């Protein structure tokens, strides 16, 4: 029941609301106290006070007060609304929706509550609820077009295309006079309706509708594209061809227009000369078009290819286009094209040699001869045509001509990266950076290479040359604010390699949080977009946000976090002696202490530096200090994260989005198996295993996991519930239940004896199956004699030896160093730095 207030207090209460809305929290609080002095149990005032306290950052207190308010006045919509807002603030959207619904039941006409509920329903994808809310909002204000469009969007997102169209039509028919030609909202609403008709698959009707609205539509490009698409789908080839030509006239750099044009002209078959003629036509009318000249290289073959490639290559190299190789490398999957391009590039350089005086050389530009050399350097650096020695030679030749050229240095650094020499790669990239200090691109590359070389402090310093460093959090806080995912991920991965697991988790969590922010970011647009009238872009965004964490940015950071948590879990097991491993406990304990000490030292150093930074700060710029008081990170090194008692639960949190959105990513399935087998969730582990088998049955990791699953089931199957046993028996088909693993594993090895990665896997399994460790260690040395450029399996083998605390590790490292003398990883470990 509303609790009555005196008229003076009533006006005070209105002031509280106003103060809150205008963010004058202190005043609002004072006024609320005034009311509460006389009416200590006034629910609405208590609720408003809670809301203000919450805005001041005291969430717990706010919740307690809001509950008190509800106890005082269960029937107040304000109390329930506030309760919902607090939950909303906490991002507990389910509870917020419940509270809003209570509030709305008590005050059905409140537009404010209705709006808050509707946006939350859209955010939570409760489309049935959203339809209800939007229907109510339409009923209360049916003169507003956006309310009609919003209801249509609700039906559309809920999957009811017919109803969505009907709502839009109803509004259109209610219009007495046609909207002006420049009414953007109208123009977009009509196109939105058109897209719904097409989405239902009725292209003829979509085309007819489009023709009826095309004339004055303000989105010309969309009209032209949709028309072309519908005509093509309807088989109206001549008209479709005309439509695609209209599009090419606007933009001759969109490959899809060409392919669609040639398709509707029936030229996508074997008659490549007719097809090429179309491209030639556009190359002629658009002399600066790249696509028209380059795209025919995709389908031309034999001598036609050679001729066209020669023309293109000559043109690009004469002009000095640095991306020439990048634009052609996709052709390298065709061996003929790969070889042709190689010989053409050689011819080009030779031909230039015989010409007298290359005028471009004087300018130090990447034109002519240097461009040809640059192409060849990249050619021999590419994995499908790799010969790193040759690649380096071409870089050297290029640098003789243009010694200060950044691109050649960048390529040189990449070559060393491919050799595995991360140290040299980082040094050369840094040298390249010094040649063009104003360019952030080369700066970014340098920082990335430094991170690959595990030089995290140096990398941050490099980054700081372009970040805003005026907050006490320094460059790192700017990188987090600006959502620099690549940096956070690389820094996390480098921290893993440096043994700083807490710091690594800190970075991976930062990426995780950015994705949370990105999901939250759409919230404001549920209302904003309707007011802007940009409906198609909004619907696109909603659909993209639905699978936001499909992005490889997410997967990579999440895989890093999962691996780190698995490591934490496993080392705990070892320490507790659970898996009976006897030889590691003391060492692990010591190592952990060492790591902790190292981390603490870093913490102190970071703190010291932060203080120094703060001291150095220009006193005329006080801004940073205040804003940083608000959010002080109480775990800057992630020590709390690393000391979690539930590493597998944490790992699962990172895992679920990968399994949901990127099920075809084998690394995700592999990680899923590792998490679930440790959690003894055998059906889920099996599901991951089977998915991995479906993606790549020959993968060495899949072999390991299948054997491990087989082994674990032999031991545990009997103790599992009957239903689970049954499912496992029918679903686990990778290895037959009766298989003798000790025979199975050698068979696998025999099949893959030339692949180092498979050999390492088979040896891992030998040890797992109980074979003598010494024998396994010895077998790992075979990896060194496989005569391959790929040193990474050997790096894994070295890691295994360390993990097994093998006395052979050092001997293996030395041997690997001799086999691959450039690989930084196989160099002797640096002597521990004296503490600074």
């Amino acid at each position, binding site marked *: 029941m509303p609790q009555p207030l005196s008229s003076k207090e009533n006006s005070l209460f209105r002031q509280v609301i106003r103060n809150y809305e205008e963010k004058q929290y202190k005043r609002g609080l004072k006024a609320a106290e005034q009311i509460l002095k006389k009416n200590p149990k006034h629910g609405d005032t208590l609720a408003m006070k809670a809301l203000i306290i919450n805005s001041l950052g005291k969430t717990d207190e706010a919740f307690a007060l809001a509950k008190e308010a509800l106890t005082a006045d269960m029937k107040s919509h304000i109390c329930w609304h506030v309760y919902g807002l607090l939950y909303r603030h906490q991002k507990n959207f389910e509870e917020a929706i419940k509270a809003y619904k209570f509030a709305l039941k008590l005050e059905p006409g409140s537009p404010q509550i209705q709006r808050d509920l509707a946006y939350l329903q859209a955010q939570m994808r409760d489309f049935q609820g959203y339809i209800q809310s939007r229907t109510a909002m339409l009923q209360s204000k049916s003169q507003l077009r956006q309310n009609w469009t919003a209801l249509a969007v609700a039906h559309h997102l809920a999957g009811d295309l017919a109803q969505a169209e009907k709502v839009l039509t109803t509004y259109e028919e209610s219009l007495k006079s046609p909207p002006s030609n420049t009414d953007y909202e109208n123009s977009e609403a009509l196109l939105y309706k058109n897209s719904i008709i097409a989405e239902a698959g009725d292209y003829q009707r979509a085309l007819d509708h489009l023709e009826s609205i095309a004339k004055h539509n303000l989105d010309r*490009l969309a009209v032209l594209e949709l028309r072309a698409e519908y005509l093509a789908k309807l088989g109206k080839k001549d008209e479709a061809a005309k439509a695609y030509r209209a599009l090419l006239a606007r933009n001759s750099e969109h490959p899809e227009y060409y392919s669609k044009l040639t398709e509707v002209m029936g030229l996508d078959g074997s008659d490549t000369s007719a097809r090429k003629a179309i491209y030639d036509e556009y190359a002629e009318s658009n002399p600066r078009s790249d696509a028209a000249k380059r795209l025919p290289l995709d389908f031309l073959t034999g001598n036609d290819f050679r001729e066209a490639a020669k023309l293109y290559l000559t043109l690009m190299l004469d002009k000095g*286009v640095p991306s020439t190789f990048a*634009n052609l490398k996709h052709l390298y999957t065709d061996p003929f094209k790969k070889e042709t391009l190689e010989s053409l590039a050689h011819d080009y350089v030779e031909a230039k040699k015989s010409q007298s005086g290359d005028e471009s050389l004087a300018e130090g530009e990447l034109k002519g001869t240097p461009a040809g050399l640059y192409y060849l350097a990249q050619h021999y650096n590419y994995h499908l045509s790799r010969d790193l020695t040759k690649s380096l030679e071409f870089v050297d030749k290029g640098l003789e001509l243009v010694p200060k050229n950044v691109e050649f240095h960048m390529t040189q650094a990449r070559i060393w990266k491919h050799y595995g020499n991360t140290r040299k790669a980082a040094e050369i990239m840094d040298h390249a950076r010094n040649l063009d200090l104003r360019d*952030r691109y080369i700066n970014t590359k340098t920082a990335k290479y430094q991170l690959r070389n595990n030089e995290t402090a140096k990398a941050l310093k490099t980054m700081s040359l*372009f970040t805003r460093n005026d907050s006490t959090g320094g460059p790192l806080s700017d990188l987090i604010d600006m959502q620099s*995912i690549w940096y956070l991920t690389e820094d996390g991965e480098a921290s893993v390699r440096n043994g700083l697991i807490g710091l690594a988790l800190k970075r991976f969590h930062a990426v995780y949080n950015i994705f949370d*922010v990105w999901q939250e*970011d759409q919230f404001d647009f549920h209302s904003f977009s309707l007011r802007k009238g940009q409906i198609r*872009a909004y619907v696109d965004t909603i659909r993209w946000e639905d699978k936001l964490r499909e992005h490889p940015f997410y997967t990579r950071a999440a895989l890093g976090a999962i691996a780190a948590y698995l490591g934490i879990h496993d080392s705990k097991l070892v320490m507790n002696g659970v898996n009976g491993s006897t030889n590691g406990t003391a060492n692990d304990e010591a190592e952990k202490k060492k790591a902790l000490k190292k981390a603490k030292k870093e913490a102190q150093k970071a703190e010291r530096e932060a203080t120094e930074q703060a001291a150095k700060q220009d006193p005329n710029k006080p801004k940073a200090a205040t804003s940083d008081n608000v959010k002080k990170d109480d775990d800057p090194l992630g020590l709390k994260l690393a000391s979690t008692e539930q590493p597998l639960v944490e790992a699962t949190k990172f895992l679920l989005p990968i399994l949901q959105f990127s099920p075809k990513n084998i690394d995700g399935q592999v990680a899923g198996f590792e998490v679930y087998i440790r959690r003894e969730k055998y059906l889920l582990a099996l599901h991951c295993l089977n998915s991995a088998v479906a993606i790549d049955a020959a993968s060495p990791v899949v072999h390991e996991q299948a054997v491990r699953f087989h082994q674990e089931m032999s031991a545990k199957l009997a103790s599992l519930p009957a239903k689970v046993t049954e499912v496992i028996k029918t679903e686990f088909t990778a290895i037959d239940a009766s298989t003798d693993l000790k025979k199975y594993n050698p068979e696998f090895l025999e099949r893959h004896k030339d692949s180092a990665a498979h050999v390492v896997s088979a040896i891992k399994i030998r040890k797992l199956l109980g074979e003598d460790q010494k024998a396994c260690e010895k077998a790992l040395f075979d990896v060194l004699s496989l005569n391959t450029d790929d040193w990474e399996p050997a790096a894994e083998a070295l890691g295994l030896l360390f993990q097994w605390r093998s006395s052979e590790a050092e001997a293996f490292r030395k041997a690997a160093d001799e086999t691959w003398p450039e690989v930084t990883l196989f160099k002797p470990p640096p002597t521990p730095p004296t503490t600074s």
Partner: protein
Amino acid sequence: MDIRRLEPRDIPLIQHANLENLPENYFMKYYLYHALSWPQLSYVAVDVSRPKKTPYDYPKIVGYVLAKMEEEPADGVQHGHITSLSVMRTHRRLGIAEKLMRQSQLAMVETFGAQYVSLHVRVSNKAAIHLYTKTLGFDQDKTEASYYADGEDAFSMRLDLSIIRDQIRDATDSEDIDEGEPVGEAGSKTLPVREKDLKKVKVGRGLGVQALVEKDESKHS
């Protein structure tokens, strides 16, 4: 290379390209704000030759133009503004920046009736200044002192779009004689520059969107 309109799903890699290339950076919501307010105006250049590493790879963005309409034009004239433009160092000399700009400018006129387009550029950025003035025909309007966060001055530039407007008019005239005003009245209407006539529309205020616009302005594009 593929030059096409920006799609919302491009945004993470646009942001990535921006962070790699330029010192002026923005969080995702600011990109969303552009993509959802003026989806017609922003374009991307995609490296379509890049082999995929996973089935979930997103199109690799090697260049982009992030553009908007001025929401509260101080002069009362509808005009576009280039928030950010960049092309990866590895993909220069293909004319990508120019092509992106031309597509954006066309859409500014067609969809929003822009009279001109404005932008800021660092006074030291010779390559960009060359592109704007020599290739695209921008005029140097004025210098804004200490415009950038690091204290550098900016040239404020603008390009009159009436040529595009005339071209559209000619094209549509020849196609359909009734269609004389393709750009619409909003486009050709020049508000008299009197303070009280200027509409103060606080778009997105209280929605968080405006807040981020302000945050950006302090950072400067």
